[in-house]
């Protein structure tokens, strides 16, 4: 059913008893044109755009847990397109533009809030890098502003301007960046895909990939074999495990990233702010909790939980950047499994195996990419060629020597 102010009004007087399920719970059919493995943000968005933009309707999304049980439901909800390298920037800007129309597109309020992101810089070298990145954004037509210390003081008076180990010199602002309600993104795409006839199959774990003459013909699952013409992997941190079922070894290492939320507070932080002398980033959810995180724990992990030392380090950076956080209490910590790639950038590509398509390597930045990832993956699956903004995101870029390394740290995934 369509959501509107009127539907809410009507339902209110019907005791809210007339709302219908947001999606069906279909039993798997024996065959689909496309099966997407992974009912997270990217998998659901892929299904939605395949059906909506590319006319393929006979689609299943198979999910081992519940819809949105992966990283789309355990991130810090930041959406931005402030990248430097030409392989990345147009892709993320395309994504941001999709975000800007997403609520109307999906008839679902994902609470995309363009409150602006500010990256702080603390020394001349960092400022120069930010200027290079800001100019790269402007080359792509993406707005960026360089803020000096004085204007930052007016905007964000609570920052530590006087007693920081690495004094804040200024910041790079992208006004159109912001946050969104993460679960709602999964639910909105799920509902949208379902309305276009996509079968969303929960509690259905892929246990094997069936191939004939090398080509993929379907998947073995905990709910039986399901055949398909094309198989698309959007399994984030579990990509390597699913890929291995088809004999694929990938440039991916799975790592755990922690995120945190504080007790609810009245509005006190109005932007997304990132710390340049570390990895800390923070914003305030509409519910009032301060949502924040920093770097990955650093070791290979498939456990959705982190360690205390990293959490402490995150807090040290947080209090150093915003001393007033000191008395704020942290409510909850959680962890997500990140598909860290060898250059810190994602992969949307075909694989050497016929009928098998790959979407992975999102590191800790997959949330913002959700719409574009889905759109471009759908484009690739439907048309057999990359969308023009995703052309650089190839699987063979490593062996061919075209890495997209925003951090400039090389092939060590835990440093990206």
């Amino acid at each position, binding site marked *: 059913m369509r959501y509107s102010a009127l539907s809410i009004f009507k339902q209110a007087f019907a005791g809210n008893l007339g709302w219908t399920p947001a999606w069906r719970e279909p039993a798997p059919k024996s065959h689909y044109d496309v099966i997407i493995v992974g009912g997270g943000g990217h998998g659901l968005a892929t299904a939605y755009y395949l059906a909506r933009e590319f006319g393929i309707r006979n689609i299943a999304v198979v999910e081992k847990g519940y819809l949105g049980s992966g990283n789309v439901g355990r991130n810090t909800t930041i959406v931005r397109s402030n990248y430097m390298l030409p392989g990345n920037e147009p892709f993320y800007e395309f994504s941001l533009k999709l975000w800007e129309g997403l609520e109307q597109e999906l008839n679902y309020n994902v609470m995309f809030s363009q409150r602006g992101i500010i990256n702080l810089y603390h020394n001349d070298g960092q400022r120069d890098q930010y200027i290079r990145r800001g100019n790269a954004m402007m080359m792509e037509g993406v707005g960026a502003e360089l803020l000096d210390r004085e204007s930052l003081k007016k905007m964000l008076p609570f920052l530590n301007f006087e007693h920081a180990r690495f004094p804040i010199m200024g910041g790079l602002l992208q006004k159109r960046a912001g946050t969104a309600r993460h679960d709602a993104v999964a639910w909105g795409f799920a509902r949208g895909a379902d309305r276009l006839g996509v079968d969303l199959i929960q509690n259905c774990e892929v246990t094997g990939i069936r191939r004939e003459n090398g080509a993929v013909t379907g998947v073995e699952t905990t709910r039986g074999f399901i055949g398909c013409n094309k198989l698309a992997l959007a399994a984030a941190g579990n990509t*390597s*495990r699913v890929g291995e079922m088809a004999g694929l*070894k*990938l440039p991916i290492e*799975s790592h755990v990233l922690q995120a945190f939320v504080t007790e609810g507070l009245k509005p006190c932080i109005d932007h997304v702010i990132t710390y340049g002398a570390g990895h800390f980033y923070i914003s305030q959810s509409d519910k009032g909790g301060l949502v924040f995180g920093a770097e990955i724990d650093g070791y*290979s992990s498939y456990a959705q939980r982190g360690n205390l*030392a990293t959490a402490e380090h995150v807090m040290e950076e947080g209090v150093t950047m915003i001393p007033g956080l000191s008395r704020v209490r942290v409510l909850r910590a959680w962890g997500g499994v990140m598909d860290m790639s060898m250059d810190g950038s994602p992969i949307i590509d075909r694989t050497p195996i016929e009928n098998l398509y790959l979407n992975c390597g999102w590191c800790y930045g997959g949330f913002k990419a959700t719409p574009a990832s889905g759109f471009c993956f759908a484009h690739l699956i439907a048309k057999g060629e990359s969308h023009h903004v995703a052309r650089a995101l190839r699987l063979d870029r490593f*062996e061919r020597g075209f890495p997209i390394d925003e951090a400039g740290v090389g092939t060590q*995934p835990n440093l990206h």
Partner: protein
Amino acid sequence: MASLISCPHCGTRAKEEFFIRGDATPVRPAPMAGDDMWNDYVHVRANPRGRIREYWQHVAGCRRWLVVERDNFTHEVFSVSDAAAGRGGER
């Protein structure tokens, strides 16, 4: 694992004393090995869930590179050994 590592040289130490590099399985190919082998070595990771071997350096302690064998889902550690041990390295 995520909290403590038992260094074979220094004893049980907090995670903060270590620098982690990643998968300890790939072996550096011979200089003239094929392109595929070199690409695999530098870029490709098996990345299984379960028992793995990983390089940790005890940077704040003895500065030795260690191989930590552990489960990356339960975070149980099975063994920690000096990376040079058994590889012809003299100490």
